[in-house]
């Protein structure tokens, strides 16, 4: 059992506010995924530039409670794990991570924000929530029973199956539900749960929001990269460096901040 004292303090005091503050970024991601016009938000707003972000605590949590932090990664998908580890543990800038993972800084920032929320949810609900757990919270909130085209479904059952299989198409086919209808229900439930003052409900709200975002139809399938070869310039191995070297900038693009 993890000792969540420190993380609970974070979630109790700051996470809910921070979730709200990063909400506009998630809206931007949804808009990007659905190829809609971007919502009217400050284009300079990023997860890094939010001053409250640094009071959230994941940086210090990652540095001071690394083992617990790594256990929380179980709640994330592989790509999100890499971004979170790169950002919080290796202290890389979002632009550098974007270059490494071939994503834009905005997308990297959104992914990290979502992953952070998912980890905070995992603190409250555990990294692998059970169907009973979901059922209990949704029943308490009177939201477990949902109606889609006059057919009754259990939202906890659908959410749990999606969580375990990670295949939205298979889920909608198995239950014969139109994907858009299920997405609508996931969004509706997440919005209502996020408005709840109860921490457990908020955590589930974020989990459902993550599922809703993950289920978005993508115009471009993500690149199926299994391996990538990159070559560093020779200047990185030199002790005496002539600043007239055309590859000089490569020396200063680590994007790492010292941790000590």
């Amino acid at each position, binding site marked *: 059992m993890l000792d969540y004292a420190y993380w609970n303090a974070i979630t109790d005091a700051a996470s809910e506010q921070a979730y709200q503050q990063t909400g506009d970024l998630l809206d931007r991601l949804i808009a990007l995924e659905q190829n809609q016009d971007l919502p009217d938000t400050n284009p300079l707003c990023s997860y890094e530039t939010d001053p409250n972000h640094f009071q959230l605590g994941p940086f210090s949590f990652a*540095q001071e409670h*690394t083992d617990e932090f*790594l256990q929380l*990664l179980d709640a994330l998908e*592989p*790509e999100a*794990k*890499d971004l979170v*580890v790169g950002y919080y*543990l*290796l202290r890389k800038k979002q632009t*550098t991570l974007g*270059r*490494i993972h071939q994503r834009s800084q905005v997308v990297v920032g959104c992914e990290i924000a979502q992953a952070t929320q998912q980890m905070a949810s995992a603190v409250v609900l555990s990294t692998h929530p059970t169907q009973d757990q979901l059922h209990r919270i949704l029943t308490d909130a009177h939201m477990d029973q949902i109606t889609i085209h006059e057919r009754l479904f259990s939202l906890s059952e659908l959410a749990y199956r999606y969580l375990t299989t990670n295949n939205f198409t298979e889920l909608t086919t198995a239950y014969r539900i139109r994907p858009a209808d299920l997405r609508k229900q996931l969004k509706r439930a997440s919005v209502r749960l996020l408005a709840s003052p109860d921490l457990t409900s908020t955590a589930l709200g974020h989990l459902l929001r993550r599922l809703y975002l993950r289920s978005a139809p993508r115009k471009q399938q993500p690149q199926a*990269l*299994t*391996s*990538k*070869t*990159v*070559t*560093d310039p*020779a200047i*990185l*191995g*030199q*002790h*005496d*460096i*002539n*600043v*007239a070297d055309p590859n*000089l*900038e*490569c*020396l*200063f*693009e*680590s*994007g*790492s*901040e*010292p*941790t*000590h």
Partner: protein
Amino acid sequence: MLLFHGNRKQLTHLPWFSLILTSETTLEQTLKAIARAIRRIPAIEVFVPKDASDTLYIYARGKEQDVLSLTRIAGVQEVASTERLIPNGKDEPLVNRTPITLPDADIQQMIARSRQLHTERQQTIKRNSFVRVRDGRYKNYCGTVTTLKHNQATVEITLFSRTLILQTPTANLEVLNLPKSQQTYYATQTTDTQ
């Protein structure tokens, strides 16, 4: 690391100065700005003792006005100087600052040590060594050396989502002696290796 520009032979008779940096957390940005600035100076060299624990001091050799011009860079606090107060009959005395010059022999000793460490590091790298990347975009990522050829190594870095094959100079690597169970790509942050 020794950054230089121009003909270094012209510098042999010139003294070294010590530059004080404002913070080690902004070291990379400061060095980048210094490297860009010294491109405009005909002849100068800047020694950065990166292997030392104290990176708040770097050393520069060139014409005095060229070295003093580096203090205009954000991140460079000042050139180490002596201060002499000159009474001027008013409340506030004038301050006369004289940059401290450092003996070439002392700095050359530090440079020689730095070069030695640089060479030694390369010699310890073998095939299947678990290493940390020291500089560049993949700084602090760790992986296993798969091939070694002409001072060039291929390092396999296993991320959660994929594998990165990094071809980098061996001098850009540092061996980490860690048990297999701790050999992750973020090992530098989970173990006391730095």
